[in-house]
């Protein structure tokens, strides 16, 4: 048959071809080599990797004004809503849940996103800290980067423990997915083993002086650490210290009320805080209230530690629209009206307090304090729109009147805060306090100086000066004191437990000293337990 001859040739060729292909570099063919991203297996020892690792730890700071899901609901809102000093008629933010004690870990992304943001900051820092020692850097530069990163990790953890108490302690990158679920560690351990050592290390490692650009310097570390020391001299640290083994957050058996706390460690922390605040004292000066909402004054004047924003797309401060009065057409885009001081809070300012002075819409003089009650219609400047007092301290005029976003920095620490903390530390140590800063703050506000100060004076001044700078919740929790707002005055301070804010339908209980662990974490982390009194609680499924 003529088949035969052709077949022999063809068969040979076929088999040859097949085996040639079969033998050609199989190993490499199935090897996976990512080309678009670095991986942990990559060689990251070259000098060029040093700074990006340090810079990575700054990334989550800008999320401070980030989104908490739904229109106008931003994260800074969520830190003011529980205090009783905020109000909004804007329905998306679900403020009524705070008013009626219906807050759960699943309330929008109020807790989910804060949790994610701050823990991501911790993870970013951990990645940098694990890799930086391998990078080819001078000792000084390695120390500086390590100091910056550790200061930032401490800051993220400081936020976490103040919001939720006991925290998931993780100081190295996660290697194995099966180790991802971790239980919480005592907040005292987090302070003792992470926050305080990180900041104390950073104090000696980072450059001295002020931060002109948002990078961590010694001044920044001093401000944060002073706040940390002041906070651990109060609550909940001091109560946990009475019995560190107890599951305080799970049981919610908080009961201590004295402030300042009379303990050896509290005094020692206050002394350390005092030293740092003394070091900062006099290095800055108070400018005008207009500086607070002027992007040109970013990192200048009384600024000590700010989050860096820019009007460039993707880097904006997102608190602008929420702070404008709801649907008033004074800006190019929507006004959310969700980051709004409650009327009774505004009414507590003294009549002559320059911070609260608003100007007459008829004369169209822009205000110079922290509030405003009128603006012009964006479509028609001859049309004036009036509204109840709203925050003016975030009013970045260029951004309000254009389609650009706001490039105004967010202040975490500014000099007025230092002055008030210093006053408080001296007061808590039983030393003369009126001349330690509070009167400088009052002087700028046009208020008479105080001869001697009480806790009420300090807390009131903090409420007026640092209004809606996301400080009040922390102040309430560390001092366990709440403000009773009065007419042109703060009429008193009350113990946190039992205090009922004017517009809430319930009184605070020990539950409210902490916030709920977010729903997403409760679902994804089988080892975490909810704070006392909150939903959702842990549920473990069955299966085969």
């Amino acid at each position, binding site marked *: 048959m003529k088949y035969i001859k052709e077949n022999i040739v063809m068969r040979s060729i076929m088999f040859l071809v097949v085996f040639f292909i079969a033998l050609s570099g199989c190993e490499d063919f199935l090897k996976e080599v990512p080309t*678009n991203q670095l991986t942990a297996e990559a060689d990251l020892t070259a000098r060029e990797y040093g700074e990006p690792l340090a810079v990575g730890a700054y990334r989550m700071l800008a999320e401070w004004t980030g989104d908490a899901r739904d229109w106008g609901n931003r994260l800074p809102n969520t830190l003011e809503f529980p205090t009783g000093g905020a109000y909004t008629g804007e*329905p998306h933010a679900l403020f009524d849940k705070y008013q009626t004690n*219906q807050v759960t870990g699943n309330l929008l992304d109020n807790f989910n996103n804060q949790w994610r943001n701050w823990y991501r900051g911790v993870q970013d820092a951990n990645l940098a800290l694990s890799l930086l020692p391998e990078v080819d850097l001078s000792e000084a530069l390695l120390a500086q980067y390590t100091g910056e990163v550790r200061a930032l990790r401490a800051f993220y953890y400081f936020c976490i423990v103040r919001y939720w108490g006991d925290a998931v302690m993780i100081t190295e990158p996660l290697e194995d997915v099966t180790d*991802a679920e971790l239980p919480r560690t005592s907040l005292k351990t987090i302070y003792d083993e992470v926050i305080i050592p990180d900041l104390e290390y950073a104090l000696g490692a980072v450059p001295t002086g002020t931060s002109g*650009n948002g990078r961590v310097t010694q001044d920044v570390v001093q401000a944060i650490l002073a706040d940390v020391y002041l906070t651990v001299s109060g609550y909940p640290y001091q109560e946990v210290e009475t019995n560190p083994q107890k599951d305080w957050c799970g049981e919610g058996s908080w009961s201590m009320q004295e402030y300042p706390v009379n303990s050896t460690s509290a005094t020692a922390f206050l002394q350390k805080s005092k030293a740092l605040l003394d070091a900062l004292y006099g290095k800055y000066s108070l400018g005008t209230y207009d500086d607070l909402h002027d992007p040109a004054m970013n990192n200048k004047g009384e600024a000590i530690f700010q989050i860096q924003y820019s009007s460039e*797309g993707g880097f904006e401060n997102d608190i602008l629209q929420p702070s404008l009065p709801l*649907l008033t057409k004074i800006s190019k885009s929507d006004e959310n009206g969700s980051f709004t001081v409650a009327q009774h809070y505004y009414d507590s300012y003294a009549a002559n307090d320059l911070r609260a002075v608003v100007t007459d819409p008829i004369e169209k003089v822009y205000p110079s304090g922290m509030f405003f009650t009128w603006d012009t219609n964006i479509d028609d400047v001859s049309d004036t729109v009036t509204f109840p007092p709203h925050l003016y301290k975030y009013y970045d005029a260029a951004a309000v009147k254009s389609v650009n976003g706001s490039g105004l920095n967010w202040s975490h620490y500014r000099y007025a805060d230092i002055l008030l903390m210093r006053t408080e530390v001296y007061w808590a140590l039983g030393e003369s306090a009126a001349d330690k800063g509070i009167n400088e703050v009052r002087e700028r506000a046009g208020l008479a100086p105080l001869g001697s100060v009480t806790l009420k004076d300090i807390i009131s001044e903090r409420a007026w000066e640092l209004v809606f700078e996301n400080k009040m919740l922390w102040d309430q929790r560390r001092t366990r004191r709440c403000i009773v707002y009065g007419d042109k005055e703060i009429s008193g301070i009350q113990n946190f437990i039992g205090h009922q804010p004017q517009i809430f339908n319930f009184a605070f209980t020990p539950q409210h000293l902490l916030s709920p662990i977010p729903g997403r974490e409760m679902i994804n*982390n089988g080892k975490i337990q909810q704070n006392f009194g909150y939903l959702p609680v842990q549920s473990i499924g069955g299966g085969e």
Partner: protein
Amino acid sequence: MKFKLPKKKLGISKYAFFGNLLLGIGFSILLTGNVMAQQNITVTGRVISGEDQTGLPGVNVIVKGTTQGTVTDVEGNYTIGVPDETAILVFSSVGFSTQEIAVGGQTVIDIVLNPDLTSLEEIVVVGYGTMRKSDVTGSVASVTPEELVDRPVVNLGQALQNKVSGVQVIKQGAGYPGSNPLIRIRGTNSINSDSDPLFVVDGIVGVSNALRNINPQDILTIDILKDASATAIYGTRGANGVIMITTKRGDVGKVNVNYNGSMTVGTMQRHNYTVTADQFFYLYEQAFINTPKYGNLDLSKDFRGGKGTGLSWSEMPHLFEQVPQGGYFMDLIGNDGNYYKPRFYSNWEEIAFDNSFSHDHYLDVSGGSETAKYSLGLGHTDQEGLLMQSYYQRTNARFTTDIELNKWLGVSANMLYSRAKNTRGDDQLRTVSETWPILPIKYPDEPEYGLYAGKWSTGRDFPVGENWRNIVYTTDQRDGYYLNTQFTGGLVLNAQITQDLSFKSNLSIDNRSEDSRWFNGDFQGTRTSDARGSNARWFYWQNENYFNYNKMVGDHSFSGMIGLSWSETIYDWVEARAYNFPSNFYSYNNLSAGTNTPQVYSSNQRSALNSYFARVNYAYKDKYLFTATGRMDGSSKFGPNNKYAFFPSVGFGWRMSNEDFMSGSSVVSNLKLRGSVGQTGNQEIGSFVTQRYINTTSVMFGGGNKLSGFYPGSTGNPNLKWETTNMWDIGIDLGLFNNRVNIIADYYHKRTDDMLFNLPLPESTAPGSAFVNFGAVENTGIELELATTNIQKDNFSWDTRFTLSANKNEIKKLGPTGGDVYVDTGAGNATSVYRIGEPIGSFFGLNRMGVYSTEEAALAARYGRVPGDLKFEDVNQDGKIELISDGDVIGHSYPDYYGGFINTFRYKNFDANIIIQYVGGVDKAIVHESAEDRQFVSGMVNRVLDAWRPDHQEGTIVAQVRAGNAGARYDSFTDTHEIYNGAFIRGQAASLGYTFSDIVGINSLRVFFSTENFFLITAIELEGYDPEGSSLDKARTNIQNIDKYQYPNPTNFSLGVNVNF
């Protein structure tokens, strides 16, 4: 591929006769005088059927080795010129054995053609080969060309729906033009990895986007491999079933030209009723009456003059005009004391939607000689959506050829090209429902409208709620498209080494790119305009080499196949975004016109597979059948320890009807029992997921100085391995009364283990989720297909086909702790849960018990609520309403059963076809809470008219209040109120055609009228446009039927022609 004896020989042959006659004339002209000159001998004769001794019309008579030929007439007579006595005539006709007769000295050649018994057998395409359907031990279903294009269909999903049991076609985007349907074969196997079947097009494995990009008219047959015996040959890609597509190919000696064209008009079928302008004011009044129970009214949003402060009707002349007292059905009194009424009454649904007009054309030319066959196809479809400016346009081209190089070596080539474009800008439907009905599209450009004159309206113009920009405005300001181009093609070398042994080698590619452009304008200066353009490319190549061996020894029949393959997929993507354009003029066409710093992105990926596969078939006496397959797959997607995996299967068949004791049966004409068991895999996860990423970002520092920063991007899992599905299937093929009744029934059980599960990791310790092998899913089900020929007369026939599929899905294991995994826990999403013991696609939510009545004030107060607020079941009785703690599974988005009932009628030259679709045991989430619970925050559906009032305590809708006012709230959760019975019966399609067979110059002409979605029966209370599908932004792979204002599904009417030249 399968060939059937034409049921209606006469009719079809008649067309063929005219067609071939015409072609003969055509060829005579085309092939020049040279051919004519060679026709020295004229041969005549008659072809009769060996079956009934009658003349056979339409038989091709060809002079071998030429393109010269003719066809027999109605009586079976023919006349043909041949060049000389050495010529050989080839007589062929579908369903008959081809005969070759040497002319010799004859001038009259009468022959008898006998039915080709082997071609009567259906041939099915299986992996790496074809088999007689009767020899198949696995579960394989086939769809013929007539079934595929019995009416104008745009994509394969539409064509397949309800025709094959066990195959669920999910219309994701409902009626959205160009939306990609999903196909699930025997349920959903996996939670996070892909559950789409594998598409094998002309041997090209894993063609992407086949469902959407392939023109159904280019397809000859579709064979669907459902069980492990059939799919395990595709190993890691076989677990979700395999759809084998064979495109049209040329036939010997017969040049065929077909044109199909149709025009379609689509109309709205159902409505989503929103409040009218009058209802709006009734509700507004009601809201302000109801609201004070929450606290003090915020009068700044109360425009009722004298009652509110600030603005009133009289201060909004752009929206209100003065009327005398009583001039409107209710008194709208302005601050000036005058009476007003709204100027505009907009029904946004009417404005947004209009009848659509679409057309479709397809031209197909095929033919060939003994040594070279070809087929060409060219198609264009232009589909308009009901929503303004939504469209889908696709152009397809196809070329296939089979060339015989010599007796033992052949080459085939297949090339498919498609280009499809559709609108982007699809998130518009919520706008339609939530824009105030009192707004115009645009204000008249007249002085009385002041600042508003000539401007587009927005929600801000009546400033109580969200700023919805009306649909015409957004459509004017936005533009964009997706453009998909795809080339799929390959060369196949086919060598017949010996009579028993053959070898095939193919080299194929699938090259697809998706371009996207998007422009979002400046909306009258209220935002920064932005534009973006992106391009994503996928390049796949494969090389497969395999031997086929067939041997018959006595009663034993063997066949075997062994082969190996390589394939690689390379993906890359770039995107550029620019901002702040000086004018909307540039749209997306000139990104450099944007003044802000542009942003650019890119990424790439690669994955590869290396496989070895084999199959053995053995049959004894055509009664006992056995098949075994195995495939060893190596994938780059997994870590070094788990690169390779082996997937085996076996199948058994017993053709009882061939046994002696049954062969005489007059009732049972065919009976086969089948059984199979096997293992398949799934590797459909992204590339590089086993590795731990370090991502980069840009961090802003003072003075606008940006620095690059590293951060942990993902958590790797080097131990990741294959997902494995074990499946067994038993089935029966039963033919009764000479196969006039055919029943195919299957029962299957599938269990997927080591499920590739994208485990959401705690955010406290890990960046995002990671793929792990945790979990198991089980699918069990039955499939039934009943095909009957009810009436078979010369002039009239009636066939029916009934399909039924029932699948039960259950999650058996999940994650490391077995805890629930929730998806979309926020309101307005239709929350769902993955929970052990429940099926994939379960809706999760609260039980809405109604509204707190006045008597329940004390109970309401326990939850901080007042009468008129929504009442949810507090399952754990802790005094708090919380979704996860008080929620439960409240619905299922996959049906318990579904199928179709297809009737085909032929009467003389008329044909008619009716397809009824039914789906049962399924729920639909109508997530319109944003237009129910948030009155005057956004526009409302008219269900709110039935809300609670002091004098109307019933209902499940929250009292009319303006949410936010006086502390009034809205409680929106996924809840039982949002879950509707999604069962339905649909008149899916019907057509009526008439075939003209006696038009000179045309072989045949069929004109038809068809309609789609011509009736729909649902539960009476079902809201929304359609029980099927999801809105585009809620299209989840595993959770179906989420209507957050989904695209309406049109009723279509088409007029078309099929012409054969």
